[in-house]
């Protein structure tokens, strides 16, 4: 069967590697089928097994029915919103909430969109892009620290567990 050559450019006889064509094709390639598909199926099967096991071991939560008459309930955010929830703690009061809750997250999202155009450093390796690497590290660190602070705060809720 004829193997289609896709975005990975075929080997050329006597090819001279230059800055322009060095990323045309990787050192080694393999067919998407079966090698990559097998790897994909293995990972998907593992994830499915984990999800099914969790479904029985830790059933999806369902607290008491919503009661509009109560005004003392303190909701806890899902774990993936914890860093955002914690960030609001740094901007207390009506004057600052728009800044911490809307303006900063919007700026972060805009920066995310603009990443390909902000990164002018040559090469693809993160070692060769120290500026972007440091920025990414700081973002990840901020998210992790905020999440940990949120977990500590939630543990101190009345009868709270994260």
């Amino acid at each position, binding site marked *: *069967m004829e*193997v289609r050559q*896709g*975005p*990975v450019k075929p080997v050329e006889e006597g090819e*001279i*590697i230059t800055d322009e064509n*060095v*990323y045309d*094709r*990787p050192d*080694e*390639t*393999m*067919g*998407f089928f079966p*090698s990559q*598909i097998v*790897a*994909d199926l293995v990972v*998907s099967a593992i*994830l*499915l097994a984990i*999800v*099914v096991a969790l*479904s*029985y071991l830790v059933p*999806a*939560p*369902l*607290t*008491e*029915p*919503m009661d*509009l008459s109560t005004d003392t*309930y303190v*909701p*806890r*955010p*899902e*774990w*993936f919103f914890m860093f955002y929830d914690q960030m609001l703690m740094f901007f207390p009061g*009506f004057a600052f*909430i*728009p800044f911490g*809750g*809307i303006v900063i997250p919007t700026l972060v999202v805009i920066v*995310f*969109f603009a*990443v*390909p*155009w902000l*990164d002018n450093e040559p*090469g*693809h*390796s*993160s070692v060769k*892009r120290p500026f972007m*690497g440091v920025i*990414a590290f700081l973002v990840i660190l901020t998210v992790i620290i905020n999440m940990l602070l949120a977990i500590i705060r939630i543990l101190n809720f009345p009868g709270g567990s994260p």
Partner: protein
Amino acid sequence: MIARIRAWALGVGQAAADWMEVRTGVVSMLEHFLYEPVPKRGMWLYTLGSATLFLIVLQFLTGILLLFYYVPTTDEAWNSIYYIMTEAYFGLLIRGIHFWSANVLIVVVGLHMLRTFFSGAYKAPRELNWVVGVVLILLVTVLAFTGYALRWDAEGFWAWEVGIKIGSYTPFVGSYVATFLLGGDTVGPATLSRVFAIHVWLLPALLAPLIGIHLYLLRKHGEFGSEFEYTKRLAELRERKQIEEYALYEEGDESPRE
């Protein structure tokens, strides 16, 4: 005998494939998708993308099954979920898979984004695929947020209420967006209908074509795992440049460049 059966089966299979190919072009389309060469060394890293797709498909499938029992009204929403978890066949499993695969999806999609970032896979010509990926992450986050509210239990509802309140502080449009999402000034039956419509219809309708575009752009430009996929070629490039520089140096035309 076995050889004859095998030959007959192969013949029938070939004839069926030819028949389908002539009428639909499906065989050449499959060849096009399946036999494309892809980078070899980062094979396991690339599974993050397919794992994301798998979990989204799982979300769609379990979501459809939950719709058979879920009732999006303020009186029945909580009861219907309780029924799913206690009475419906495999209800606990289906809702569990929906809930936990959403959580795992957030982790996997985050890892997928980090892998793309640290390997510089967003660089030209793949910028637009990065942009589509960021939109997809935002949609997944909003899906998780709206799904939280559909439970109509105390935890999900009040968390959602807090989220809407924060959103209402958005300059200029905040109050309009909050009123639209609440379906009025306060929480009521319209609120749940709108959250339901957004979670079940609007967001999946946006998500599906964007996933298609993401995959199309991936196939168009090819997978870029990491620079270690190009180690030999980069080494060859460095070596060739060094040889050229020394040649220039020996000729005395110019001193070696740094």
